[in-house]
């Protein structure tokens, strides 16, 4: 296995960098979109709420591969050119954001309704109550499920291999084919994913402890 690494390390490093880059971009964007969608799901506006619900239920319930293939194949065919890397990253962002939105919505719903009513009776605006009273609590509640989403996101980024996205899995496939040493190659690739996800898991655990999530 060390021979594999010795001979192909530039490919593995290149792949790992693409995997990390794609994951970071998708993580930031999906957190942003997911939070907005989650809040919109509990909006008082019927149309906004409907839109967010459709978005979440649609993307949450179709395979990631379908979303990625859509961006890889359909968009360049009718609109503009898009590489496998970006098709994969956009697909990943949309897919993950629908799960995050659901986590955020669930988080908001765990905050007792009385807090919103109390705020309203004090003459505060809905948006202010949301921002200053409810969301800070939601943030603490959703950290553990969000951690799961982030880890899933890193692993799901292997979908890039399907659309020649030059990620770790893509080069893993390449090396496996070139050396015929399928077993060792995928073991190595698995180890490299672990090297990315384990520190992430650790960081999330730290954050949970710091926020005292397990205290109550």
């Amino acid at each position, binding site marked *: 296995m060390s021979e594999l690494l010795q001979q192909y390390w530039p490919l593995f490093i290149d792949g790992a960098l693409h995997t990390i880059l794609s994951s970071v971009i998708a993580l930031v964007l999906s957190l942003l979109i997911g939070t907005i969608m989650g809040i919109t799901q509990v909006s008082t506006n019927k149309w906004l709420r409907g839109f967010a619900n459709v978005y979440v239920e649609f993307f949450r319930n179709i395979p990631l591969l379908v979303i990625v293939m859509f961006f890889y194949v359909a968009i360049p065919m009718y609109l503009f050119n898009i590489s496998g890397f970006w098709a994969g990253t956009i697909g990943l962002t949309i897919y993950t954001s629908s799960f995050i939105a659901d986590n955020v919505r669930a988080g908001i719903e765990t905050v007792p309704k009385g807090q919103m009513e109390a705020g309203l009776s004090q003459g505060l605006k809905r948006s202010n109550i949301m921002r200053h009273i409810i969301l800070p609590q939601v943030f603490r509640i959703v950290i553990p499920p969000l951690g799961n989403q982030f880890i899933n996101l890193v692993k799901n980024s292997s979908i890039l291999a399907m659309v020649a996205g030059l990620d770790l899995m*893509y080069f893993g496939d390449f090396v496996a084919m070139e050396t015929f040493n399928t*077993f060792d190659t995928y073991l190595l690739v698995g180890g490299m994913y672990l090297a990315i996800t384990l520190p992430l898991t650790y960081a999330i655990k730290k954050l949970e402890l710091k926020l005292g999530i397990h205290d109550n």
Partner: protein
Amino acid sequence: MKWMKHKLLGFSILLMTLVLVGCGEAVAEVDIGTRIQTEETPVLTWGVKADTNLFGFYNIQSSKIEGFDIDIASALTDEMTNGNGIADFVEVTSKTRIPLLKTGKIDGILATMTITEEREKQVDFSDVYFNGGQSLLVPEDSEINSIEDLTEEHTVLAIKGSSSTQNMRELSPQVEVLDLENYSEGFVALQSGQGHALTTDDAILLGMIDQNPNYRLAGQSFTEEPYGIAINKGQDFFHEQLEAALDTIQGNGVYDEIYEKWFGEILPAGAPGSPSTSTTGAAEPALDESGDE
């Protein structure tokens, strides 16, 4: 209780390692040749393509895989088992076929597989059963007319684990080569403009043109791709039987009939893909003995 947790963890890791190592080593150990002779209705499992028009293509109406490779596999199975055996088909891709063979999930590979030196270190090959040649598929209005027209501006799509992707990287190192999962994905990627050309064997590309007339081959084929049937190393008796069966069907006209059925209209006599045996009718089993170029 803490020590127990650790022990359990250690034990599960050990178990997992054992299972994984077991998977890696498990090559079918019984000689398939012996199995054919002792079992009453032996089942031979062939790894075939399901996305390659003319060679192995899943027909939705009959819900069966059909093609040249499938008919050859059936004919060989009949020949080896005197008509008592059953040919079973498992879908493979260029990426999965060798691992599946090595783990014993399939007995042989009949999946547009080129005989190469590298692969011969991993598997045993039969004599050549089809002569392919690598070519480029481009849209009708493309400016690419041969492999020489490719520059660093071009992206060529290829299929993971195929010999054509390796050839492409060696012959035109300046070109960006992107590997996709299988032929259908490769073709769809070409259609959506993810690459300027798709490269693989001409007979496969002709099969695509057959279904999508807006595409053409860019010039002559630039490599020779002799297809062989791959089996595991150490299956000497099975190898002999296979070789004999291949000789027989190439001699008695069965091979020619199958060839005519699939390529009669598409590959004119003398075209790059047609093997020497088919034009002469019968006789001469697999002329090129040295199937490793």
